[in-house]
C-alpha cells in the first residue's frame, strides 16, 4: 500500500457513518457589504490602492501613453519593459515613436533563463495590461500570458498597470463569477493590491521588499 492509500484509508475509516456537510454557500455575505454605486466604484478602488502606497491616475484611452511617459520621465527612467504583441504595447510604441521622448522599449521575448541578469538588474520598469480590478479590496487581476509573462509584474522596481474602468468589479465573488474562473484557471492567476511590502521588522511597514517598489495604475475612464 502506498502512503496515499494508507492516508486515504485512515481518513475514510474515520468518516464511516457520517454525512457530508451541505453546501450552504452565502454569496450575499460576500457581495452585499461590498457593493458600490457606479460613481463610487473607481473611487473605492483608488482609495484602497492608495492606502497601501499604490499610485493611481485617471486617464483615457487616448491619453494614457503620454501619462506613462511622464511618469517614467519624472523618475528618470529611460527604458521600459513592454510587450510589442499587445494592442496597448503597440499604441505605446507608436506614441513613443511620434514623440521626442528618448524612451527605449524592450520586450520579454525569450525564456527567463536566457536573460535573468538583465531582467533582474537592468530593467527599471514594466508596463502590463490587467484583466480587471476589484473595488472592495483595491486589487488588480492579472493572468500572465506568453506576451506578458509572470515576472513582468514582479521583478522591475516600477510596475505600470493599465486598468479599464469598465472592467472594475465590486468584489472578488462577482469578478470570479463574471469571468468564469472555476471553468478553467490559467497556469498562474494573480491579484495584485499595491507595491510589494513587509512589516517584518518591528511591525514597521516598508515598501519594495522583493517585488516592485512602486505600482502605478493608469485607469482608463473611457474604456
Amino acid at each position, binding site marked *: 500500500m*502506498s*502512503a496515499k492509500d494508507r*492516508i486515504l484509508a*485512515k*481518513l*475514510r475509516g*474515520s*468518516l464511516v457513518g457520517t454525512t457530508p*456537510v451541505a*453546501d450552504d454557500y*452565502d454569496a450575499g*455575505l*460576500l457581495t452585499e*457589504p461590498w457593493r458600490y454605486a457606479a460613481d463610487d466604484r473607481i473611487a473605492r478602488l483608488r482609495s*484602497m490602492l492608495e492606502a*497601501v502606497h499604490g499610485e493611481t491616475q485617471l486617464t483615457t484611452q487616448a491619453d494614457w501613453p503620454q501619462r506613462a511617459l511622464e511618469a517614467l520621465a519624472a523618475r528618470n527612467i529611460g527604458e521600459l519593459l513592454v510587450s510589442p504583441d499587445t494592442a496597448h504595447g503597440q499604441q505605446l510604441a507608436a506614441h513613443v515613436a511620434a514623440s521626442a521622448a528618448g524612451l527605449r522599449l524592450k520586450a*520579454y521575448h*525569450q*525564456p527567463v533563463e536566457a536573460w*535573468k541578469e538583465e531582467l*533582474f538588474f537592468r530593467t527599471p520598469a514594466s508596463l502590463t495590461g490587467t484583466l480587471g480590478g476589484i473595488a*472592495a*479590496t483595491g*486589487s488588480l487581476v492579472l493572468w*500572465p*500570458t*506568453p506576451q506578458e*509573462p*509572470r*515576472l513582468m509584474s*514582479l521583478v522591475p522596481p516600477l510596475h505600470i498597470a493599465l486598468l479599464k474602468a469598465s472592467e472594475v468589479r465590486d468584489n*472578488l465573488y462577482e469578478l*470570479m*463569477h463574471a469571468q468564469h*474562473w*472555476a471553468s*478553467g*484557471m490559467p*497556469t*498562474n*492567476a*494573480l*491579484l*495584485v*493590491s499595491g507595491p*510589494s*511590502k*513587509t*512589516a*517584518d*521588522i*518591528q*511591525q*514597521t511597514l*516598508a515598501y*519594495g*521588499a*522583493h*517585488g*516592485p517598489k512602486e505600482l502605478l495604475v493608469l485607469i482608463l475612464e473611457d474604456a
Partner: protein
Amino acid sequence: MSAMTDVPAVPIAFKRNAREALADPQLRRNFRGAMDFLMDKRRVQFPDGDELERLRAFGNRVRARALSKLPELLERLDANLSRNGVKVHWAETVEEANAIVHRIVEQHAAKKVIKGKSMVSEEMEMNHYLGERGVDCLESDMGEFIVQLREEKPSHIIMPAIHLNVGQVASLFHDKLEVDYTEDVDRLIQIGRETLRRNFFEADIGVSGVNFAVAETGTLLLVENEGNGRMSTTVPPVHIAVTGIEKVVENLRDVIPLLSLLTRSATGQAITTYVNMISGPRKADELDGPQEVHLVLLDNGRSQAFADGELRQTLNCIRCGACMNHCPVYTRIGGHAYGTVYPGPIGKIVTPHMLGLDTTRDLPTASSMCGACGEVCPVKIPIPALLRRLREEAVRAPEAVPHHMRGQGSKYSKKEAMLWKAWRKLNTSPALYRAFSFAGTRLSALMPSNIGPWTEHRSAPKPAARSLHELAREHLGED
C-alpha cells in the same frame, strides 16, 4: 513511528522556557507592543460585529464541509493537479516528506533551494534535513531570513521575527551581512532585498507552502505581501509546494470567504499585496514559471486529529495567527518558549497530534481558559474546549480504553486521580462538606501563609470566619 513509540518521549521544557522568557524585559516589551499592534489592526478590519460573526460562521462551514469529504476532495485535488501537470506526492511522516523532497533535489542535482514562507517545511525541519545532505536552503521571507541569520526558529507563524526589535535586527545585519549599522527600516529591508535578489535566480529549486488547495480546479493559492513567494514559485526551474492534507477546499469560490477571514484576522489587511494562484507548470509557449511543479501532501498526525469528531475541528485552522495575537499567555512568553513549530493556542491543540501528548504534556495546561483565542478564531475552532479535551486525554487512566491518541494518559498520576476522587466525595457529601468548611473557616489561622507557587506572586487566601452555608442557614433557615 513504531520505533519511536518505544523510546520514552522527552517532554518539552515548557515551564523552564516560559520562566526564562518572562525574565527577559526586552522580549516582554517586544511581544506586548507587537500583539497590541496586531489586535488593533484586526479590530479595525471588522467594524461590523454582525458581518464578522456571519463570516466566521461561513468560514467554519466551508472548512467543515471540506473536512466532511476530505478523502474525496484530496483525490479530486490530486487528479486535477495531475491533469494540470503538477506532480502530487503523499507523505505520512515528516521523514517521508523530506525523502520525497530530497529525491526531487537529487533528480535535478540541485545545490541551492530558495524558500518562500512555509510552516510545513518548518514542521519537516527541511532546512536541516537538506543541509545535512549538502543542499543549501535559504529563507527569502524577510522575517524568516532574519530568523535564519540568527540561527533561530520563527516565534510567530505569520511574523517570524516578531520577537525582535529594530535595534536587534540592525545589529544582526551589521554582524552577519557586514553592512553599516542602521536602524532605518527602509534601509534594512533594502539590504535584505539586495542580499536575496540574486539568490532567486541562482536557486535550482523553489519551495513554498500553500494557503488553500482547491480541489475543483487543481489550484494552489498562496498569499503574501513581499513578493518572495511569487519569486520562489516562479523563477527557479522547479517548484515544490509542501502542505498539510487538511488545506484542501472543495470549490474555487470557497476561498473567497476564507481569504477575507485570513488576511483581515492575521495582519488586519483587507487583502495581501499578492494572491498567487498556481494551477500548473510553465506551458510550452510561456516564457517563465517553473518547468516542474510538485505538491507534497503531509499527514504528520493530522489523521489522528481527524479520527475524532471533536478534535477534527483542529484541522479547520487556516493559520492566521489571530489566536496567538490575542493570547495573554503567548503575549507574555513569546513563541519560542513553546518549543514547537506552531506556538500559542493553535500550537497547543495541533502539536499533540504531531509529537504526542507525552512530549507536549505541559502545553494543554498552559492556558487560563480565558477564551480569547476561541473568540477571535476566524473559522470558529473551539480552542478552549479542545484544550480541555486534551487535558482529559492526558490524565486518562492507563487502563481506560480505547487509546487513540499518541501519548494518551502520559500525565496520569495516581496521586492526582485520588485527590480528585476525594474532591468528588467532599462535594457530594453534605456532611463531609460541612465538616470541611467548618474546619477551613475555624482553623484559618493555621493555614500556612506560604502555599507553594501561588504565594510567590500573591498572599495566601484566607478563609472567612464563617462560611456562606452557615450565614445563609442562620438568615434563611435550613433549606
